[in-house]
């Protein structure tokens, strides 16, 4: 074998090897999810203030993402969000308030959005609601009038579902959100700026007690949250009675 040929064989071999390594590192199927002891360790080593003590449960939203609920040393309820990245199960956000949040598993695809919460005092709450909202709006510029209808879509939960939960946002919310991204895709980059309702959209929640009065008990929980890397988890804000249409 000539020197030149040897070089060729070696470099092709290196190329194949590195391709395999890259594939293994970024694209291989996830390992089985770590057991509870490891989860507690991982949470506490990354964010000691969490003081996680007991894992409540683990919910896989898909093969690559998991939602893990835990109880802290002080008895507070926490949430943690895990994803399989770079050949490792990483925790991306740790939250000890348990307050309702929206988890945009894949930001580009609203059908992967999940509403999550943990540790609401169910004995003081009769019903709980989640909302998707867009503020009614109008604009007149250069003689062109624009009107964005007010959007208020609601998902009501019954008493048994209140204390903790995770669910995909309703299909109808998804179809509304998707319609905005399609319009945005059609927008020419050089076009004049237009009002896009998606930028003023938000998620919200509230709760009622058994006398049908709005209940603030879920808001009293303190706690904090810690973000590690990509932030695709946002707090869902409380919707006051005055704001409900």
């Amino acid at each position, binding site marked *: 074998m000539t020197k030149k040929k040897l070089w060729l064989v070696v470099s092709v071999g290196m190329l194949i090897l590195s391709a395999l390594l890259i594939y293994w590192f970024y694209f291989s199927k996830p390992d089985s999810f770590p057991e509870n002891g490891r989860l507690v360790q991982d949470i506490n080593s990354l964010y000691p203030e969490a003081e996680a003590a007991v894992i409540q449960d683990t919910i896989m939203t898909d093969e690559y993402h998991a939602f893990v609920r835990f109880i802290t040393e002080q008895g507070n309820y926490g949430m943690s969000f895990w994803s399989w990245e770079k050949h490792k199960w990483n925790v991306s956000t740790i939250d000890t308030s348990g307050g309702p949040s929206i988890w945009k598993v894949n930001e580009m695809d609203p059908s992967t959005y999940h509403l999550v919460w943990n540790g609401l005092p169910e004995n003081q709450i009769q019903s709980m609601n989640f909302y998707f909202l867009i503020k009614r709006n*109008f604009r007149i510029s250069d003689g062109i*009038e624009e009107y964005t209808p007010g959007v208020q879509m609601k998902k009501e939960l019954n008493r048994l579902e209140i204390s903790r939960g995770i669910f995909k946002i309703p299909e109808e919310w998804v179809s509304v959100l998707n319609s905005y991204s*399609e319009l945005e895709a059609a927008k020419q980059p050089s076009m004049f700026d237009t009002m896009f309702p998606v930028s003023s959209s938000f998620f919200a929640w509230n709760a009622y007690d058994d006398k049908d009065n709005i209940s603030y008990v879920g808001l009293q929980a303190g706690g904090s949250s810690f973000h590690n890397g990509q932030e695709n988890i946002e707090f869902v804000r409380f919707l006051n009675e005055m704001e409900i*249409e």
Partner: protein
Amino acid sequence: MGNVNIVEQIMSLVGLLVLVFFAYRIYQKLSEKPKLWKVFVIIMVGLFAFTFNISMFGIMVKIPVLPLGVWILYAIFRKKEEQWQVYRRFAWLGFVMNFVFVITTLVAVPINQMMYPENEPASYISTIHDASIVHIHPSAEKSSLNKEILLKEIGRLKEEPVRSHEWYNETDMYDPDKEVIERFPYQLVGFKPKWGSGLNTIVYIEKDGKGLLIQKINFIFGRNTR
């Protein structure tokens, strides 16, 4: 294909063919043939120009002003007079192509207007096989989409001005005892625009079911007036 405008695609292809045609003509006349990839690079650099954007017939076009690419090439070939004589034409062809692309863009406007009239809701709402309505506001009443009627009536809608300020104000949002009534409490989803139009829109339905508020880049309001 739902997202792209077929007319614009075809017109840019036409522009490209024009480019290839002229490049070929110049190439043929040369006694000394340069390498093809070099010609390609020269044309690409030649395309580079200082432009200003103006709005014509409702679209933005880039009018080329300064041939920056040609100047750059001239600077590079300043000392190589013979090579510059060969490449010069291709560089200028690149710059002139900017005008050709402006023309093809403008030609697409009336063709689009003919194939997909902007004031006809049928251009925006064409395939409704998978369409349905979403109740986006609590003041919406229980209702579902009647596809047959929608298809029949869509050609008969009359365009009316969007009275955004009026609609906003007539919605009384500040009296806690009164139910807020949204003028457009439904959204139409799952429909498709005419094939190849690229006219993606959001469509809201008026509370009485007779009007459609179509949001594209600007708003159109069509209403059944009978």
